[in-house]
């Protein structure tokens, strides 16, 4: 078995197990820290797929940004010293059945579809190609994304501000 296969299975195991911990753990902080391992292992999957720029972006944006935001959210909205940190689930059995059904359908579709496989081009670096595509083919979505980020910045700053009553 080649090393990349072993690496894939190890990373997939980390992703699935820590995602299960995220979903089923009663403690919100434990879920947040478990999400850390999921995001890191997904970044490793990107490296296996030879997408180095996406892997670094994943670490910088998800682990360095979104996860910190989520942990801030947990700490600002729950009393850490209290048992309030524990949360309850609702409709566990129906939602497990629904999710397993969706997963089964998706896996069935994956294996029954004839994908248009092509021999992958062994490109040495992706950063140059991504930069060229972003400023040529995908220029309009790129600019729209920058405007969207500005709108999200202003909007979330307005939302999070504590509004004084009268």
């Amino acid at each position, binding site marked *: 078995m*080649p090393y*990349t*296969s072993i690496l*894939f299975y190890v990373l*997939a195991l980390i*992703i*699935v197990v820590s*995602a299960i911990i995220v*979903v089923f753990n009663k403690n*919100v902080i434990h*879920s947040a820290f478990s999400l850390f391992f*999921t995001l890191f292992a*997904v970044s490793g*999957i*990107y490296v296996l*797929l030879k*997408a180095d*720029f*996406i892997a670094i972006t*994943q670490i910088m*944006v*998800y682990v360095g*940004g979104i996860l910190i*935001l*989520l942990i*801030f*959210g947990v700490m*600002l*909205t729950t009393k850490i010293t209290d048992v309030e940190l524990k*949360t*309850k*689930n*609702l409709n566990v059995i129906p939602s*497990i059945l*629904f*999710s397993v059904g*969706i*997963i089964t359908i*998706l896996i069935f579709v*994956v294996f029954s579809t004839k*994908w*248009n*496989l*092509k*021999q992958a081009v062994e*490109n040495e670096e*992706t950063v140059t*190609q*991504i930069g060229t*595509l*972003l400023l040529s083919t995908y220029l309009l*979505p790129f600019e729209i*994304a920058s405007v*969207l*980020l500005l709108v*999200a*910045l202003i909007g*979330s700053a307005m939302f*999070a501000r*504590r509004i004084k009553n009268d």
Partner: protein
Amino acid sequence: MEIGLNHYLVLGAVLFGLGLFAMISRRNAILVLMGIELILNAANINLVAFSRYCGLGVNGQVVSIFVIILAVAEAAVALGIVLNLYNNFASVDIDEANTMKD
């Protein structure tokens, strides 16, 4: 056994299902957000895998960059909403937020 496209797609499907379960079943608003992040990650894995195995060059990777940008914007705005929810209802349980004005 050589790792192919199907392995990555199955991994993405499992991650999607787990995120879906978090969105349906958990009552804490922040855990619902974590479920959304899991689903977006599953979509990203699929995009990059298709980009690698279907001869698309780096087009799929560029699209996954846009997905990451949307995830950042969504997380920031949604956490602002969750903080407002906590200010108004003293809880982040989304079942308790069932009135439009208190």
